């Protein structure tokens, strides 16, 4: 059974036909070619697939595409512009808080939501805020420093 739905992603409406079990993550990557959102563990452990749903960070691998109807979804493609990076992305680059880059889109989305709700977090709040984003390259020190840097501006 395939169901026709409309999804609002980065301010634009997309029409897709999805089987019931298809996740928002799979639709983003396979149907809409929005491959900035990464598939890490596919079970809600790693945070690589983090997108914002009505402004809140969520694991897109744990949401049925059918269940995202009527929600405002923001992916990494909706952050920053074509010619300029978002301040969070700039800070991650400046601090060398990226290596393989696989966790970075998810981290950017989580940091974006964190700073939107709490513009000047403590270091502990930053660490708790990104606790759902696993990084296996750089570790977290540089990532935390980068987010703290943005929060000071």
């Amino acid at each position: 059974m395939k169901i026709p739905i409309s999804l609002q992603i980065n301010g634009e409406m997309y029409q897709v036909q999805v089987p019931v079990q298809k996740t928002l993550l799979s639709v983003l990557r396979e149907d809409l070619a929005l491959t900035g959102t990464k598939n890490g563990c596919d079970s809600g452990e790693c945070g690589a697939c983090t997108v914002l749903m009505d402004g809140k960070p969520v694991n897109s691998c744990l949401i049925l595409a059918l269940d995202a109807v009527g929600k405002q979804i923001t992916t990494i493609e909706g952050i920053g512009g074509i010619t300029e990076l978002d301040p969070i992305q700039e800070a991650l680059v400046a601090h060398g808080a990226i290596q393989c880059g696989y966790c970075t889109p998810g981290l950017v989305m989580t940091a974006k939501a964190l700073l939107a709700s709490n513009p000047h977090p403590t270091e502990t709040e930053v660490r708790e805020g990104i606790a759902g984003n696993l990084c296996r390259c750089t570790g977290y020190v540089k990532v935390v420093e980068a987010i703290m840097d943005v929060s000071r501006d």
Partner: protein
Amino acid sequence: MLDLNYWEPGNLLEAVSLLSNLGEKARPLAGGTDLLVKMKKGPINWSGIVNLKGLPELKGINFEGQTMTIGALTPISALMANPWVGVHFPVLVEAARSLGTPQIRNLATVGGNLCNASPAADVALVLLIYEARLLIMGPKGPRKVPVQEFYAGPGQTVLEPGEILTAVEMDVPPLNSKGVFVKHGKRKSHEIALVNVAVLITPQPGTKQIARARIAVGAVASTQLRLQEAEESLSDTVVTVDALERAAELAEAAVNPIDDVRSTAGYRKQMVKVLTKRALQEAWGGEL
């Protein structure tokens, strides 16, 4: 290829009738943080999903008099965001903060944490010390079940076919009560408890006595447990190191953990004693 059916009932009665007609063929969807993982892992013995998220009856946190009602679809993060929950039920907020990750907490629901019936659940454990009552709607009408009577085994509840947990209600404990939640795991975040303990004590004003103690433990038996004997050993008792030690020993004696990939039965049993005593001491707060 998986070929699932899908329903979005518009109101509670429609959802109840759908679920009772479909029986074992369908699963209700709330936050999805467990259901989707199970669906992907497979094999599954059901073929349809009834999405409950559109039901207005299952949403919101309300206070009326001394009673708080939490809709079953309330996300865990909403418990942390509501200042009144923190004022009246601070241990609930502690448990919410320890559950999963920020992303999971935005999806996972209070009702899901209960209905999943994991012996290690964090938020559900704290509902035991607050003596929550679960509001259930089913084909035969509404009923209320105390949370300590809700579990039938690991992953199993007393919900009958077609029944839906709609809300959780609990009374604000006496003002001088103090609770503590302890989650013991290998990591600070994104952890499933090896053992978790929640206590709530109400001191007898002007004395060194506890009027009433409530103790609940998780991940150490086939269901989460209220430890009645340990609780009773403390009521109307002068608080001493020995009294707390005795309660902790009774707690240890009452649990029946297993060896699994995360820990051993022996370690869990010991930790019940250690953590119960520690939690009671912290909740009491004063000199011993």
